[in-house]
């Protein structure tokens, strides 16, 4: 166990807190009241609810966080809290400064609460599992290059793996993993075998790809809904099996126009290497001498027999001098990074029109000069009621993001740099690009700055919506949407004359550029009907959806660029060109029926019939369907004694969903590529596009869920406890096929997988007094999976370390079983299946060392409010999984090439017969196969962020300023883990998730 708190940081925070923490004067005659208005049933905050001073027209409206602040009140003032579809409440202010209100819905479960044609009620939540992440996470959270980084720890069963690189999308999984994580060829990063397991992402109704996440302004998001169970995802048919994430952006709030300006500035100090410290000069020199590393200065400055006295003197002196040089290469190559985030928004509306306009500029620096991300977005939303029956909505947004990073990073370079070398050195012993294929330049700064990739992405979204109340209970709606994305990647490798002169291709330099465009259009036509008679209520809806996606690609690659021109235009005449063009169509018919009796019993049936052009005509259509029921037990007479519960609802659902992830037309039958730019003897060549699998089918998931939704203690506690079993058949995975086919792998339906688990999500107002509130929310998810069938096979191996076996978890570590070092000769020893000792070449790989997925994940949030002061903390945790300490493996393997291992390494290795040491003689450790020695427990708990907000508005007394908030926050402050690598959340060789400190102002007027 090690704890790495930054004391100075904590101290700093305390100072900040104290500065703002002056008790708010309470004795004033005029007082300000603030609070949050929520739905009594669900605990969700209500946006745009009104707070009126009784019998006057003076009042305020809740903002996107459901928060209001009302000044100039007297203790005897009476406030009226109201929201459409809810019972109003009246409260006398008294001497309270904090008044939270829970409004009770007046309408029946299935009745619509329509605002600007949009039903504010999510009927899916009656019987299905829909997790919701509130605005606050996005508006008050850390400045983020991509909103998905903010989702971590918010919803039980939603797992997020971030890379820490500016602007890069995370890996998102809902309720467990279907995919096998396999390290890529260069053994650096853990890459997924396929993208078939990504959830579906929907932005305002239109499907988007995770690649454009960084063009979305997090502050525009009003909520993110996570559809987890089999029933609620039915409406997405062939795409819903891995869960759905719906992203909705802010609409205007009717009322006085609100202008908001927010600026946040973040600093990211140079991060260390987590649990690793690198070997220092004295030890490194001694090791080079000991191991006879011929290029190392420790060896070179070792006196040899026959040396003259003078030579010996000089060698000893040089050696001594070098021992005193200790360069911190990470520091040399890195920088302190700044992040700037500026946001402007206008929201408002009157009577039948509302609007929201925003624009955002975000600039993030990475840990070294070439690493940065830049984003500009703007959004305009408009809603209008044409008359009582017809409402139209329009929203548009444009986003541009630009990211840059080097093909290497300080974290990738430091191991090749000796502690006794300095930035002024001219030769670097472990960095010869002529003998080592992975280096391009001797000088690490050249390697860092001369090989880089830039990516520019544009996204344009246009959506329109029309709702028409045809007659009582009958509603028609139509939505049209279009998303255009354009992304451009360039990859530059500057030439290196020395390497080119040695005859190596990589010395010539290269420039590659690729552009891909995609246009996705969507039409959705629907009709719904609601009827309420006596104790019965029904709701029916149905419709059709048509989505067409077209994409185009163009790229070229040129080798040999001149350093006399801008490398990005320096393409040589022999550039090779690649083009592509795809079109696919999805069409679906859907229907949903709900029946409700006395608001006690709810039944839902949902059906969707989807056809997709990516499958052969005979198998194009698949039906997704689901059924659910819920029982509001607290409404039963006999439940009265348990009145401590405001809500006690049991719901169950079953759903059958499909997933088309990874399937392409060219995977279903043989197609030939006539665009190959290669030639032989000047003649064209044609080739098979890819190996095909004529039996491909959609993956099918059948999921049972059983849940208890509860509310307790007069709306103080809300929670959901849910268990599920998800059976996936025809599991899609890219697996190895016998190489005798001439191809190595293929997307196949390999078998059946079962994920099961339970989730607990609780949010509670732990303490609420007249001026203080402490809210806590906790989520906890437990998921395990097991392969239940592998059609006709017992096991499938993929690459060097992927392994599927019936009865085992999907992501089990599959490694050679390390037995130690042979004290006689210093060679590695392994166990075979029968616990006999064997050598490396014949040692079998086996499982039994844990899985790379954590069974337990979750988050824990606490928010404290006192007057105008707010403090919130977020902890995230994961438990029970292992990680492969790739860095350690690489360090040990490359010692013989002169690279730098960790401090104390020399003590850990075998050197002469009889030594009993944990690590072998480095020369015998070149096998790249995976080894249980490097499988480590990666459980962790992390203080993800601490945020302090203080509203200065009242102190400043500026006219027209509704609120003036200052914020201070710190991220990734503390991690508790037993993992001895860089960071339990970072796979491969990298840097820990960066610590960052932010200061911001947020002014509304």
């Amino acid at each position, binding site marked *: 166990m090690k704890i790495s708190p930054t004391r100075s940081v904590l101290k700093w925070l305390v100072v900040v807190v104290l500065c703002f923490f002056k008790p708010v004067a309470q004795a004033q005659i005029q007082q300000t009241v603030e609070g949050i208005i929520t739905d009594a049933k669900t605990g969700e905050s209500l946006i745009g609810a009104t707070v009126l001073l009784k019998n006057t027209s003076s009042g305020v409206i809740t903002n996107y966080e459901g928060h209001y602040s009302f000044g100039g009140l007297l203790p005897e003032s009476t406030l009226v809290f109201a929201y459409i579809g809810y019972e109003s409440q009246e409260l006398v202010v008294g001497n309270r400064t904090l008044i939270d209100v829970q409004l009770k819905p007046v309408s029946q479960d299935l009745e619509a609460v329509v605002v600007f044609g949009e039903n504010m009620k999510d009927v899916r939540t009656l019987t299905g599992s829909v997790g919701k992440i509130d605005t606050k996470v996005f508006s008050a959270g850390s400045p983020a290059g991509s909103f998905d980084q903010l989702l971590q720890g918010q919803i039980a069963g939603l797992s997020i793996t971030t890379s820490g690189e500016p602007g890069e999308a995370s890996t998102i999984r809902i309720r467990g993993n279907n995919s096998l994580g396999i390290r890529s060829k260069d053994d650096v990063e853990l890459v997924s075998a396929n993208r078939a397991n990504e959830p579906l992402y929907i932005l305002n109704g239109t499907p988007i790809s995770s690649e454009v996440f960084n063009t979305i302004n997090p502050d525009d998001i009003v909520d993110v809904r996570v559809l987890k169970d089999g029933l609620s995802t039915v409406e997405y048919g062939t795409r819903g099996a891995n869960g759905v994430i719906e992203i909705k952006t802010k609409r205007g709030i009717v009322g006085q126009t609100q202008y908001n300006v927010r600026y946040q500035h973040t600093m990211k100090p140079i991060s260390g290497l987590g649990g690793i410290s690198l070997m220092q000069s004295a030890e490194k020199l001694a090791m080079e001498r000991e191991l006879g590393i011929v290029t190392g200065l420790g060896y070179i400055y070792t006196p040899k027999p026959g040396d003259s006295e003078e030579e010996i003197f000089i060698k000893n002196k040089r050696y001594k001098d070098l021992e005193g040089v200790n360069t911190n290469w990470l520091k040399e190559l890195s920088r302190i990074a700044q992040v700037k985030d500026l946001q402007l928004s206008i929201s408002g509306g009157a009577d039948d029109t509302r609007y929201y306009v925003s624009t955002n500029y975000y600039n993030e620096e990475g840990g070294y000069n070439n690493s940065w991300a830049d984003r500009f977005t703007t959004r305009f939303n408009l809603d209008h009621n044409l008359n009582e029956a017809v409402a139209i909505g329009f929203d548009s947004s444009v986003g541009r993001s630009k990211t840059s990073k080097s093909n290497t990073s300080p974290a990738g370079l430091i191991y090749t740099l000796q502690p006794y070398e300095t930035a002024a050195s001219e030769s670097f012993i472990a960095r010869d690009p002529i003998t080592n294929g992975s280096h391009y330049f001797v000088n690490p700064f050249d390697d860092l700055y001369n090989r880089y990739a830039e990516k520019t992405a544009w996204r344009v979204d246009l959506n329109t919506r029309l709702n028409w109340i045809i007659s009582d209970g009958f509603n028609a709606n139509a939505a049209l949407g279009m998303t255009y994305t354009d992304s451009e990647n360039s990859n530059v490798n500057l030439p290196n004359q020395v390497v080119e002169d040695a005859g*190596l291709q990589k010395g010539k330099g290269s420039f590659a550029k690729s552009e891909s465009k995609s246009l996705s259009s969507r039409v959705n036509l629907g009709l719904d009907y609601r009827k309420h008679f006596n104790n019965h209520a029904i709701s029916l809806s149905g419709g059709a959806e048509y989505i067409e996606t077209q994409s185009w690609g163009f790229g070229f690659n040129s080798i040999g660029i001149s350093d006399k021109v801008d490398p990005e235009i320096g393409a040589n005449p022999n550039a090779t060109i690649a083009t592509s063009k795809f079109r696919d169509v999805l069409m679906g018919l859907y229907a949903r029926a709900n029946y409700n009796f006395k608001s006690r019993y709810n039944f839902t049936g949902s059906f969707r019939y989807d056809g997709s*052009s990516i499958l052969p005509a005979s198998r194009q259509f698949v039906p997704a369907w689901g059924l659910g029921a819920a029982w509001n037990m607290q409404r039963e007479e006999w439940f009265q004694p348990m009145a401590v519960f405001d809500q006690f609802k049991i719901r169950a659902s079953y759903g059958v969903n499909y997933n088309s992830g990874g399937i392409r*037309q060219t995977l279903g039958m*043989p197609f030939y590529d006539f665009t190959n730019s290669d030639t032989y003897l000047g003649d064209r060549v044609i080739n098979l596009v890819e190996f095909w699998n004529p039996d491909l089918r959609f993956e099918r998931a059948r999921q049972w869920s059983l849940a208890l939704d509860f509310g307790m203690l007069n709306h103080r506690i809300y929670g959901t406890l849910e268990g599920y079993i998800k059976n996936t058949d025809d599991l899609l995975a890219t697996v190895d096929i016998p*190489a005798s086919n001439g191809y190595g792998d293929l997307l196949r339906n390999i078998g059946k997988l079962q994920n099961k688990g339970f989730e607990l999500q609780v949010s509670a107002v732990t303490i609420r007094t007249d001026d203080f509130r402490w809210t806590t929310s906790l989520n906890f998810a437990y998921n395990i999976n097991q392969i239940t069938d592998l059609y006709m096979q017992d096991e499938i191996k993929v690459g060097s370390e992927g392994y599927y076996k019936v009865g085992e978890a999907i992501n089990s570590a599959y490694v050679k079983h390390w037995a130690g070092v042979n004290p006689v000769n210093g060679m590695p020893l392994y166990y075979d299946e029968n616990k006999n000792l064997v050598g490396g070449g014949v040692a079998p790989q086996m499982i039994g060392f844990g899985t790379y997925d954590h069974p337990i994940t979750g988050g824990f949030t606490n928010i404290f409010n006192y007057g105008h002061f707010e403090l919130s903390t977020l902890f995230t945790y994961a438990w029970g999984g292992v990680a492969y300490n790739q860095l350690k493996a690489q360090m040990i393997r490359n010692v013989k090439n002169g690279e730098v291992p960790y401090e104390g390494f020399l003590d850990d290795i075998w050197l002469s017969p009889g030594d009993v040491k944990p690590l072998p003689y480095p020369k015998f450790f*070149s096998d790249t*196969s995976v080894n249980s020695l490097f499988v480590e427990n990666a459980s962790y708990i992390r203080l993800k962020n601490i945020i302090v907000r203080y509203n200065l508005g009242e102190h400043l007394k500026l006219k027209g300023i509704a609120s003036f908030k200052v914020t201070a926050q710190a991220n990734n402050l503390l991690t508790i883990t037993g993992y001895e690598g860089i960071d339990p959340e970072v796979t491969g060789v990298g840097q820990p998730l960066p610590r960052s400190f932010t200061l911001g102002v947020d002014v509304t007027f």
Partner: protein
Amino acid sequence: MKSIISSIKIAALGFFVLSSCELLDVKPDHVVPEEIAFNDVESYQMALNYVYRNLTSSVNNMQCTDFASDDFQGVIPGYAPTNYYLHYWDYQSQPQPYVWGYQYKLIANENVLINNYDLVPVGSEYDAQMKDYIYAQALALRSWSLFNVAQLYAPRYDGSNGNEVGIPLKLNLALEYLAPAPIGKVYQQIFDDLDKAERLMLATGHRPSLYDKPYQFNIDAIRALRARVALFTGNYDLAGQAAAHFIDVPLLDKEQYPMLWQDEFGSENQEIIFMTHDLSDTDDADLIDYHEIYESNNAILHNDLLAAFSADDVRKQSAFIDAKNMPAKYIIAAADNKGQADRNLHYKHFRVAEQYLIYAEAVLDSNPQEAMRVLNILREKRGAELLSAVPDKAEVLEERRKELFAEGLRFYDLKRLSHELNIVVQRANGAVLVPNSPLYNWAVPREETNSNPNYN
């Protein structure tokens, strides 16, 4: 009334479903289905060009077999660990040699042509001839790939055995989980395909131009391959017959020996039967990575090999065999006007000199004088001392070792003759390769055994 409404509804729904089917009928327009891809002979040829293009890289991995032979006495671990492991006959450590995957990749490319033969229409007599000419090349090339896989990964076949586990006989392009075929069956297929290819080749009137000829796997290459396969399977009659086609082809004089490698189209140079055109002058291929072999891996040639050459042997010149430099068989060496070796030579896969050696070995028992005569022609042309007495098999093998150095045949030779000649190969670390050792059969790599239930 109700029934009318419902029938209208059903009709509307039916229409919707039908029209939606049409909407979903999206044909990919960036790629071509096989019926269209192979509806002319030109495209059929382009698929063959792809095979040849991929063959150009063979030198990089077929040559690795030499590291398992006695031509090298030391290789250090490091840059190219595959070579190091092969040197110690450790076939399981990662990374494994790529030969299996590479040869089966070629076979798949060849099966594209063989399986789609029937789709190609013939509009004219010329088309018909070209179609068969292309098809015959694909058949023969597949035989060659199968031969290479069988040589390395299956026990030796000498005509008297044949039921041992061989290799997957991959004759179709589509996905298969093949059990390895008996070794006799594999060789039967190889010989049958070569016969068929030769028949077709003779039946078509197509004769390539002088420039194209060495780049196409034509009638000469088919016969040269048959001679090679026959020799390695102990069928001396067949080997002798096939190689006899070439023993009247003149070899270059010893002064002109460098021309063999560097001037493929010199009018005197008739020694090349089949070669592939190197891509390094088109920016499409890396230079042969000689650092990998000679510097980073510190390969050290075996003393016996260097000592075997007589003093005036042109093949011993440092450009062609040298402990520290890449043989000039492969690269255009550094010269006065350029400081670096920066281009590969076109790789010669089949040469007339090999046919001389096959012929000599094939007739050695029946007509030793003839064997001596033919060997002496070769020795004279290479500047070596002439044989004064009839040679024995060991001498023929020695000559093969010298002539064919670094051409990927030495390990095959040891596999077939080490028993008869009692050759034991020993390594610095004590590892030993004895005659008939199971180490002569390389372990089938993980890329096959991972997913093929027939292996385990």
